[in-house]
């Protein structure tokens, strides 16, 4: 069913409703892309685990990757979630929201988060 695009020239409320619907569609599409991104990682994990017949994955004597990278990603993910939660309560916590915006921007950009819905 085509969206009544007549709406976005009618009034601001209808335009906002259309943007909300577009944002919803875009979010589902982004989730699909995100799913395939993580499926690639899951595939890599199970594929390598299945092939690990000789138990030489993480071989002795080989420098393991730093856990620091994973820790940074985890911290950024948590910071994003917390900031988003607080930001969504902007009406009551405007000052705190603005205080935390640089954190949100940094963490979103760093984690290649989704962009705007125009």
């Amino acid at each position: 069913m085509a969206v009544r695009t007549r709406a976005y020239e009618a009034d601001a409320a209808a335009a906002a409703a259309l943007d909300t619907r577009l944002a919803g569609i875009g979010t589902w599409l982004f989730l699909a892309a995100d799913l395939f991104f993580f499926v690639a990682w899951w595939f890599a994990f199970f594929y390598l685990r299945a092939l690990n017949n000789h138990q030489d994955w993480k071989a002795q004597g080989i420098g393991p990757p730093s856990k620091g990278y994973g820790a940074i990603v985890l911290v950024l993910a948590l910071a994003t979630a917390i900031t988003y939660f607080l930001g969504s309560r902007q009406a009551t916590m405007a000052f705190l929201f603005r205080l935390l915006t640089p954190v949100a921007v940094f963490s979103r950009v760093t984690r290649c988060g989704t962009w705007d819905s125009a």
Partner: protein
Amino acid sequence: MVVSERRLSLPNNPITGIVLAIPGYFAGVWLGTLFGLDDDQNTGIILGYLFATAAFLIGIGFLNYPLERLFGWQVTPVTDPAENTGIGRFFRLSLDHKVIGIQYLVTILIMLLFGGIGAMLIRTSLLVPDSTITPPGNYISLIGLHAVMMIFITSAVIVGPFGNYLVPLMIGARRMAFPRLEALSFWVVPPAAVILAAATFWGGFPTGWTGYPPLSVQAGQGMDSYIVGFALIAVALVTSGINMLATIIGLRAPGMTWTRLPMFVWGIFTTSILGLLAAPVLAAALIMLAMDRTVNTSFFLASNGGSNYLWENLFWFFGHPEVYIFILPAFGIIMEIVPHFARKPLWGYRTGVVGLFGVALLSWFVWQHHLFVSGIAPVLRPFYMLSTELISIPTGIIFLVVLGTLWRARVWFTVPMLFCMGFLFNFLIGGISGVYLSDVPTDVTLHGSYFSMAHFHYTIMGGEIFALMAAAYYWLPKMTGKMLSPTIGRIHFWWMFIAFNSTFFPLFIVGLLNMPRRVAAYNPDLVGLNRWVTISAYFLFGSMLVFAGNLIYSWFFVARPAVANPWHARSLEWQVPTPVPAANFDRVPVIVAGPYEYGIPNARPVADLGGIVGATGGG
């Protein structure tokens, strides 16, 4: 909520972007060198490229909107009529889909020039059989640079310029769903091209476009350019896919039902599904490769418990749908243009749509045909052979739809139509030779030979680029407001058609005579054929210069203004004035008929446009 009048007023343009990108690169290199675990500075180089790209995008102005929103400042409007004037709009961040389409077109043509020069250097090297012109190491780097640059180009060459410009016009929308996302999908392409070209400063990369490990893990720093450049193209594919799909799903005008959607839009729709889902897999694989090169993971190193087959599976899970990302919009163009010049309804509209979806669906189940000779379990071969051969069925359906449309038609042989005919001829050869390569016994012999090289050039250049030319001659009058010279266009077509076939058909023979790809030295018995191909390739390059000459001559010397609908076509994009108004339509059109109802008595106009131009009845 009170909105502050403050707004960011940085001089956002490519110069600012470049000025910020240079220190961004060095900051990344410094940081990477500080924390990098590797001795080869790969961490620094990768971070340098990423920081430079981020800084470039900030300089272009991509951070303004999020900051304005977050700080409660005045937000730059999505559609600002003031930005739609002057040539300067093409050199800055624009949210107008028409401007972004032109930006894409010019950028892609420049990249095509460099990719073509790479092809000429390759063919020049093959004038002699003993690699005296180009040493083997340089030759393989040249192959890789040409290949990856061309992959970048062909991923975007139709969707970028024509998809962005035309999809809103064809569905009756006044904008794209996510204009900033659309702009981002364009502005990551120039950094990707520059980063890829920067590989030459590091000695290139030795893997070709497929990036197979362990060579890609062990290769020099040029490989980092491949990783980051390709990852940026993956970002472009995903963002473009989200934007196109959301636009087509959510912004169609009233009455633009799914069965009235133009075939070009269907081509973009199916392409966008593939780009949206395939590119993230590539991005993940590239991140794994980057981690193998920088932080001592071993995803792909068998010596440390990884597997090069993992890369081959992930890469081709992306890589084969990628092939259809090239060709599906080309199918859309052919099925779009042919009815207009055959002056007949499209024969089998729904069948054609099913054909597009059939190709898109099956493209997910064929990737291991690229691995037939890699040592995969033989039990896997029959499935992938059959699934690959199955793709010829929906492809054949699309051919039948076009041929059925041409059947007993009084064809108007314009320049776009000539290129459509050229597409059908070339793609038929490319498609049939592909069936041979999908067959395991013949693939074992022909894999890695010039036969497969000739096959994919017949499909990509003979198919997609001929469709691109058809689209250029068909739609550029609407996009630029200037008609292209039909006389030079005809010269261009015949020159390109003959030179193309003279270049690539002999390569089937060269391949059957066992000349391997990616090798600078070859059997001296094949020197005659190779010299013929090289000279033909020079002529083919010359045909592209004829096209460039036609653009310059028609735009700047003759400058004949294009009327609103020079082809008397029914479809919606031709019903708006030329040049296209900033908001596309005065009011949202109401679609009342399909775009291909030529020759049907009492056919209604395609849309109620409120009297902007007046839809043609066709016929």
